[in-house]
């Protein structure tokens, strides 16, 4: 290893014209002809497994049949009735482990119906149409609900509540709504500012007041929300990331993968986003894949994605791992970081200890290796990171908000969903399902208040 090398992190590693190709739509939209042909592969199964596999229970056979019958608007209606963020989920869902995994065509033809792409086709067509509002609000209930966090959970919750006739104020700490849809998902999955276009459509139903730049930072704010609104939904997401907990974490060049992805998403031109010549990504989830692949796409010479366990334990599905590899990422397993090596306050390499599983426990084998790095992206998970919540009296479980089967927190009149709750699984579609679940329960309670127990 050369002791003379200099850290190398810079933007513009590629020829200007290369960026457009690198960050183009990962799965280009289906043409109408392709959509109909693909739709014809759907068998319209009885009690379809794909519906059961969808956290929001989208009626897949129905919407696909409508595409086949040239009723694309009806298809979009069917999707959005179950999931108002159906367009985003169509882009972001790991369909290979959800609806498409259980498609019976896998067994027969070794290839599922392209449910995700068909779903995107239908919703895209609707959103692009002149009269794209398919929902109407119920008569005003006179009730007001505060939704904190305009990520997928909050958006879904707000949309369902306003449809039920409740007035919603949707708060978000960031400059733009969308949460991870806007800041956290890889650029090539949501080209053309899709997250914002979808939100614009979603808010178009009316009855939702959006307030960005509002963060929940005090107990007083929380109590005020409870006083002023008939119900509160918390879809805060996870504000903080886990630390590696090894020496050298503060060195220059060590970056949160979440931040790296966000910077890229918000950059008007990806050529302006700095990336290391040699990048080490620590972690094995979808964030790790998104960060690793995008680092490579930005022109990193070498990207190593390093995970402390084996491929089967990874949060990223096999398909995502394969995707990363085909984009030039090297995935290394059974390596846990021990130390980030320093050169004048700048990271120069990562030392890893090889791991093995012994009696169900991860233990070092004693072997070590060093990977040179100009940039280290940390992607070992996120955490709640908002101490105020516990002070508000909200019960936590495993470091996140505890909720019951209806999405109720331990505080009366307060519901929660998305990544900030204990059952959150990092999927947009799960967050949507949480938001909708809470909205149903809130609506029920606002219409038929249970006798006060307090």
């Amino acid at each position, binding site marked *: 290893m050369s002791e003379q090398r200099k850290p190398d992190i810079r933007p513009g590693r590629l020829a200007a014209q290369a960026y457009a190709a690198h960050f183009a739509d990962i799965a280009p939209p289906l043409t109408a002809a392709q959509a109909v042909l693909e739709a014809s592969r759907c*068998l319209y*199964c009885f009690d379809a497994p794909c519906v059961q596999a969808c956290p929001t229970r989208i009626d897949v056979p129905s919407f696909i049949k409508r595409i086949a019958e040239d009723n694309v608007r009806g298809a979009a209606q069917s999707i959005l009735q179950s999931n108002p963020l159906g367009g985003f989920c169509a882009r972001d869902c790991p369909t290979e482990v959800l609806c498409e995994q259980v498609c*019976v065509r896998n*067994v027969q033809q070794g290839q599922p119906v392209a449910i995700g792409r068909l779903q995107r086709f239908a919703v895209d067509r609707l959103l692009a149409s002149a009269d794209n509002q398919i929902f109407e609000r119920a008569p005003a209930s006179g009730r007001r609900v505060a939704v904190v966090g305009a990520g997928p959970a909050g958006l879904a919750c707000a949309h369902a509540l306003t449809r039920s006739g409740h007035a919603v104020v949707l708060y978000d700490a960031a400059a733009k709504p969308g949460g991870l849809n806007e800041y956290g998902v890889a650029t090539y999955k949501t080209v053309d500012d899709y997250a914002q276009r979808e939100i614009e459509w979603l808010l178009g139903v009316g009855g939702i007041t959006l307030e960005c730049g509002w963060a929940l930072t005090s107990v007083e704010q929380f109590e005020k929300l409870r006083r002023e609104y008939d119900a509160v939904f918390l879809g805060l997401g996870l504000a903080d990331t886990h630390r590696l907990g090894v020496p050298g974490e503060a060195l220059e060049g060590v970056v949160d993968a979440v931040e790296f992805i966000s910077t890229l998403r918000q950059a008007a031109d990806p050529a302006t986003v700095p990336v290391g010549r040699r990048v080490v990504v620590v972690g094995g989830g979808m964030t790790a894949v998104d960060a690793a692949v995008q680092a490579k796409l930005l022109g990193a010479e070498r990207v190593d994605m390093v995970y402390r366990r084996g491929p089967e334990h990874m949060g990223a599905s096999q398909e995502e791992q394969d995707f990363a590899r085909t984009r030039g990422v090297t995935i290394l397993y059974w390596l846990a970081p021990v130390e980030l090596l320093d050169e004048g306050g700048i990271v120069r390499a990562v030392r890893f200890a090889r791991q093995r599983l012994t009696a169900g426990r991860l233990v070092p084998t004693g072997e070590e290796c060093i990977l040179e790095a100009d940039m280290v992206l940390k992607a070992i998970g996120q955490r709640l990171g908002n101490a105020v919540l516990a002070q508000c009296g909200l019960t936590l479980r495993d470091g996140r908000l505890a909720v019951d089967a209806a999405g109720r927190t331990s505080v009366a009149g307060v519901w929660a969903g998305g990544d900030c709750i204990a059952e959150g699984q990092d999927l947009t579609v799960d967050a949507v399902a949480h938001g909708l679940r809470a909205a149903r329960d809130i609506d029920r309670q606002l219409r038929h208040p249970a006798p006060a127990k307090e």
Partner: protein
Amino acid sequence: MARLDIEFCGIRSPNPFWLASAPPTDKAYNVERAFEAGWGGVVWKTLGEAGPPLVNVSGPRYGALLALDRSLIGFNNIELITDRDLETNLEEITAVKRRWPDRAVVVSIMVPCQEESWKAILPRVEDTGCDGIELNFGCPHGMSERGMGSAVGQVPEYIRMVTAWCKQYSRLPVIVKLTPNVTDIRYPARAAKAGGADAVSLINTVNSIMAIDPQTLTVSPAVGGQGTHGGYCGPAVRPIALNMVAEIARDRETAGLPISGIGGIGSWRDAMEFIALGAGSVQVCTAAMVFGFKIVQEMVNGLTAYLDAKGFGSVEELRGRALPSVTDWSRLDLNRVSKAVIDQDKCIQCGRCHIACEDTEHQAITSMRNGRRHFEVKEEECVGCNLCVNVCPVPDCITLRDLAPGEVDRRTGRTVSAERLEWTAHPNNPVRTTV
């Protein structure tokens, strides 16, 4: 290797595949290309009387029923008989037949239902050296409004009369082409035979409207905003044609009358079906119009391979083989019992069999077992209707099993008899005949 050459009512051709009278056989250019591609014969597009040529629409003549993958299910047309001058057609037929002496060249004719008209055209057609004539009593559109085509084919007396004229004024074999737009195909066939026809060909096209444009709410295709019923053909009509061929082949009065089978033939297998039901030649149009003339090579190859595999030395050895299996409903053996069987190794768990049976039939297929998705036939409910077999997307996953005599039908509790029991003798039949 099996021989494909045939002799059909005295007309020889190197294979049984003829192009039907239609646009593909309208002129020498097309027919030459067809013969080069390997077609055994053609029926030249219908000639009309001498005089000013007919006029076709200068807009859409064809409409199609397409599957989602845009494969063609059905096809229709409103084209009339040839719109070319009679003399030109006769000259070209003469030249083509001279160049292709081994191929069958049959000339289709449609003139008004008057003896003089037929008497005038027949010698002229005969002079071309063609092998036979086909009387177009079938076209259901346009010409029928002028008292020709299916307007003749729907009146057995006319068929008999015109056929007799043709036999009187021509020495050529006479093939009578029948329209399916009748209630009972046996009557026109009997009339053709009674008139002296050497053969019949069927089916011509079926009256049809293809579609309504959802935007304009006009019939589609449309000429200047209006449409008219056309003649329907293609794969969708094949079952109708097969039935009509079988009806004629097994009718006491017409049995043995040579039949040229027409209707949705696009492969060797389709041709096999017509031949097995008694057809001596087959005619093709739609498939050629979709794929071009080359497809005859696949048909020839496929039919040869099939005949070889079955040990048939010729087309004639296949002809009519399936006919004994066609009978009247009243002659079906009501003592036979079948039950559906689902091959669990092949089942992909789509559940179509279940919901079809549950909603529309006999509730004879499970959807769950021990809380898990599982599709299995409940023999105590199954009537052996075959619906599940037809809706299953997996070939040979669901089959029908015939119960052996002595087995108990779990639906009725009765032991399956080895005896035959036809409705004619069934105890529930109030007018049963004792055998």
